């Protein structure tokens, strides 16, 4: 005996002693009934009679428990509950619907136990029922929502397959178009050179126009090269294996290719927190090359460029950041267009608007994502989240 059991009961309100088992049975806040093993009702409480709208005389010894259910419930009882009661002596939390005398229905949850006589023969089934009107509505809402979610999922999967197909078609188209355009543009450039060497122009403006023509040709070629890369890089990466890339030498190499004559203090590298990244080497090459060349290209003419490349861990995910003190972009206005193909924000600087599009595609392909901070006149920071 525990200490608590030894303590005397606190003084009770005398009215509580009025609680008697008969009244508790009849007016319990749940339905009670007892039946013979075949389901014939032998005893039923007032609560359940009130639910059903029958009198006791109409039910006892006249109807079976199963006959109080809708037909679906009755079938279920015969096939599932009746065998279970004999095999395991009880069933629990079975969801049925009672049919009232007036034809209306009442959802209930049923527990039942089988009592056996001294010879172990089935004697009596005791049944308890709870009114679950509101719960049933909620459950049906859940069932509907589940069905709906399943339908939506199928629809999304279908749309996804369609989009993937369209994307592949578009890539194919871009690749073919850029390939087919390249040859005639090269021919035009060759013809122009040929033309310059044999033709004489009297107009003093002619030289300037030829220069502009040349420049336009170069720009078209750059765009075409960019387009080819946009399609080809991600394709190559589908096959490329990821490897641990040592960030410091890797980035230094890219910087050397960007500024053959070293300018002091432009780049500051800090990979102490995450010295290596697991990624396809060519993808990281393209990503860093584009971000760093952009940082140089869009430097603010009024101050020397300062570019910081660093790594850190955020919730166990490595983040590679490229921060510059360049011209900056109005991020509030342009956020949605930042990574669009051919979208440019500094028309005064030469470029074709492919770099960031490619960077975004490659990061997404590597399973990562990009966040951008920027302020006009202050600079821009790209944060690349690259889950390993």
């Amino acid at each position: 005996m525990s200490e608590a059991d030894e303590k005397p009961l606190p003084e009770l309100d005398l009215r509580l002693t009025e609680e008697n088992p008969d009244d508790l049975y009849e007016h319990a806040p749940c339905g009670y009934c007892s039946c013979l093993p075949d389901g014939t009702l032998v005893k039923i409480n007032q609560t359940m009679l009130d639910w059903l709208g029958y009198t006791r005389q109409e039910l006892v010894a006249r109807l079976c428990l199963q006959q109080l259910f809708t037909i679906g419930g009755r079938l279920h009882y015969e096939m599932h509950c009746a065998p279970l009661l004999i095999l395991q002596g009880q069933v629990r939390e079975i969801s049925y619907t009672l049919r009232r005398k007036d034809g209306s229905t009442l959802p209930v949850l049923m527990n039942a136990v089988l009592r056996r006589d001294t010879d172990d023969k089935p004697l009596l089934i005791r049944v308890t029922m709870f009114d679950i009107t509101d719960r049933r509505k909620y459950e049906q809402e859940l069932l509907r929502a589940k069905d709906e979610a399943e339908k939506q999922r199928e629809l999304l999967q279908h749309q996804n397959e369609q989009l993937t197909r369209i994307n592949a078609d578009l890539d194919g188209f871009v690749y073919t178009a850029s390939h087919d355009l390249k040859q005639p543009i090269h021919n035009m450039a060759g013809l122009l050179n040929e033309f310059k060497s044999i033709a004489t122009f009297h107009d003093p403006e002619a030289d300037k126009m030829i220069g502009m023509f040349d420049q336009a040709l170069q720009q078209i070629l750059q765009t075409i090269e960019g387009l080819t890369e946009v399609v080809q890089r991600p394709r190559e990466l589908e096959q490329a294996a990821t490897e641990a890339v040592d960030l410091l030498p890797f980035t230094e190499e890219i910087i050397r290719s960007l500024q053959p004559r070293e300018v002091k203090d432009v780049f500051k590298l800090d990979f102490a927190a995450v010295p290596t990244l697991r990624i396809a080497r060519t993808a990281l090459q393209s990503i860093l090359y584009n971000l760093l060349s952009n940082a140089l290209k869009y430097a603010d003419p009024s101050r020397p460029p300062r570019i910081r490349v660093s790594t850190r861990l955020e919730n166990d995910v490595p983040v590679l950041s490229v921060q510059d003190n360049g011209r900056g972009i109005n991020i509030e206005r342009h956020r949605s267009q930042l990574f669009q193909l051919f979208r440019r924000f500094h028309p005064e600087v030469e470029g074709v608007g492919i770099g960031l599009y490619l960077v975004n595609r490659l990061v997404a392909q590597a399973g990562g994502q990009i966040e951008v901070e920027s302020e006009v006149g202050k600079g821009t920071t790209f944060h690349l989240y690259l889950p390993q």
Partner: protein
Amino acid sequence: MDVLKRNNVSVSGAGSQTMVFVHGFGCNQRMWRLVAPAFEARYRVVLLDLVGAGQSDLTAYDPARYSSLAAHAEDILEVLRTLNLSDAVFVGHSVSAMIGVLAVIKDPTRFSRLILVAPSPRYLNDEGYNGGFEAADIEELLETMDNNYLGWSAAVTPMIMGHADRPALTEELNNSFCNTDPTIARHFARVTFLSDNRADLPLVRTPTLILQCAHDALAPVAVGGFLHQQIPNSQLVMLDTSGHCPHLSAPEATIKAIEAFLEPISSVSSL
């Protein structure tokens, strides 16, 4: 494929004759535990679970294959072939009574007797035929099943997919004897209750016993009469019990009726 494993076949008893017991919808071979042991002294007793039920290989349940009862009948013949059995006594409850009818028509040499417990060749009413149910009733049954699977449907699905990474839940569900995977149960219910095997009945040549319950919501007395009239060499025995499972509600009467029906073969084999 291991057919015996697939259908969770268990063999017990001793005798030159074999009895094969097959359970009905919503349960498994344990349903026979008040009846089958009574025959173990004189018969070899084969129990099995239909694919999709009990401890059968749930991954073998391909809904396309099991979209008709013929696939289950083929499974039973496979079990009999594997055990090298012929002239067996087939005892089938409910839907498995019809599965037995299909099996016996396909390969009569495997069976000497057919015992149909609470059978029905068609549950739905039809012109000139009273099966007891309308299509809406069957939809209501499926709805009741759905209501009862709510909550643990997601928990059971991993079992059918073959990764039991939530052992606690699986165990809890297995504690209930007649558990079935909800997706399979739903499919099997549809196949069972929408099947129509009336045309097969006259093709049965094997001596057949029909055990009809006096008060059975699923297989009314008139349906037992129809079966008796359609199966050429059949006897109809009425069991004075309620419900759909006389082998559970009236096991002694069920055993007695089966013994009386088998009497001639038993005495022949004892000569």
